[in-house]
């Protein structure tokens, strides 16, 4: 258990929790990079995914593109972007956005598509505009799957955001690179454990969020009443 115990000892050592290279600071950086990447990916992918799910058009194209994007090795992409944009956080954030988009997009269109056609037709029948259908029927009902897509993206991005340290002084990846190069395996494994712990915490948070989003199915209110669906007791 030596390396493992050393890694835990490395994590709890108070000397590693001070200054701008401290663990707390690195965790904040790591979360900020991940949050920014997933946020940008959501801004880009959510509208497209919802549009595809709502219109049921362009699905083949989107599935193909996102499938191909998933195969892009992030380190290669990062190097390429780094050569174009220089060092700093721009290249890693863009690479992480590319990593996050497929999951968010897939969640968005799958979520919207999963909504019962009967509910959608009913909404249309009572005179809702297409925009109202999207906003008040498809998104709320498909929300658990949409959130699931974001959840998958968060997990991938948090684990991969270690690569930001490849060309920037930021994130928990610094411990991995530094530990590897200086043969400080306690530091390297300690950094890895922190990333894993962070990923698990976020995964738990998103699991709760996903659960909340599925129970928060909107009740038809006011003048709007949807037909009771025979499939759901």
């Amino acid at each position, binding site marked *: *258990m*030596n*390396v*493992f*115990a050393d*890694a835990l000892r490395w994590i709890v050592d108070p000397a590693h929790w001070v200054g701008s290279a401290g663990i707390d600071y690195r965790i904040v950086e790591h979360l900020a990079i991940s949050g920014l990447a997933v946020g940008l990916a959501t801004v880009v992918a959510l509208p497209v995914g919802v549009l595809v799910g709502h219109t049921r058009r362009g699905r083949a194209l989107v599935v193909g593109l996102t499938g191909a994007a998933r195969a892009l090795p992030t380190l290669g992409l990062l*190097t390429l972007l*780094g*050569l174009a944009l*220089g*060092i*700093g956080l721009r290249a890693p954030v863009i690479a992480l956005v590319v990593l996050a988009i497929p999951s968010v997009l897939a969640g968005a269109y799958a979520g919207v*598509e*999963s*909504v*019962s*056609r*009967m509910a959608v037709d009913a909404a249309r029948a009572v005179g809702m505009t297409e925009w109202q259908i999207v906003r008040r029927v498809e998104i709320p*009902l*498909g929300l*658990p*799957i949409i959130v*699931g897509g974001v959840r998958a993206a968060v997990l991938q991005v948090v684990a991969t955001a270690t690569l930001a*340290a*490849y*060309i*920037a*002084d930021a994130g928990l990846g*610094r411990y991995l*690179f*530094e530990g590897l*190069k*200086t*043969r400080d*395996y306690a530091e390297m*494994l300690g950094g890895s*454990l922190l990333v*894993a712990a962070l990923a*698990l915490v976020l*995964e*738990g948070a998103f*699991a709760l969020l*996903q*659960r909340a989003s*599925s129970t928060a199915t909107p009740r038809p209110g006011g003048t709007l009443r949807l037909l009771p*669906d*025979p*499939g*759901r007791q």
Partner: protein
Amino acid sequence: MAPYREDDMAHEPRTPRVALAAVTTIVTLALVGCSADDPLAETPGGESSGASGTSVVGSQDYYSNEIIAEIYAQALEANGFTVDRQMRIGQREVYLPEIEAGSIDVFPEYTGNLLQYWEPDTQARTSQDVYTALTAAVPDGLRVLDQSAATDQDSYNVTRAFAEENDVASLADLSSVTVPLTLGGNSELESRPYGPPGLSSVYGVDVSFTPIEDSGGPLTVKALLDGDVQLVNIFSADPSIAKNDLMTLEDPEGLFLASNVVPLVSEKIDDEAAEILNTVSAALTADELVDLNVRSVDEQLAAATIATDWLAEKNLF
């Protein structure tokens, strides 16, 4: 209704799944922790050099080192030795235990960096001092042969424009530069004796640090040319120094250890084989090493081709 079913199934068993994931993670971590004291201790390949007569030639995971290893291998083969190539093994912490264990017989090394591996606090800096200290530091069962004039060592480089603007030719001149300086290099540089601490204590130069993890590769050069960093660590035999019109700053106080190319060999290398390798080392100069690297980087030739051409050109063997 099918869509609802799907929907329900997507998040039905969530509690057990999260629990399962957590358990799996913990078990995996525990296994990783238990497996070995040193995660890199397992012997890759495993088989030792076995049959006498076959010498194992290895190289670092570094193209320039592989070219030199190829030259050693072909020189030995030209003289009737049988060679087993184990190229691109990795970095020093990975392959040196293999050499010490006797599974590799010939390895191109660099005097300064190798000395620092065994004696991290060494005070030797000049080429001759380093070589003398290294011959004493090499563990039993191994030895270094003659060192060559070719060096491939850490060096600090600036752009020519920066050098001219600030009138800088050596690291000592940096102390009078007024603009804030940022040093770029692999993350370990930050804590190395020749990194920011050494610049400060030896030359009185204070720099901030930006990690760029490609070992002085294209990203590092790009950062320097963009002005994101002013000073970068690039190996002195790297063709990109000349290609990008960079200036290598002189190091009058010996911040960096001299690092000449030297073969590290096991007891299996007898005097005859040692003589062959010494002949190679005598023929290899610093400029020629850069030229060999240029052929690899620019012409994308295989190490074996570059080695064959060089041996032919030098009329060796």
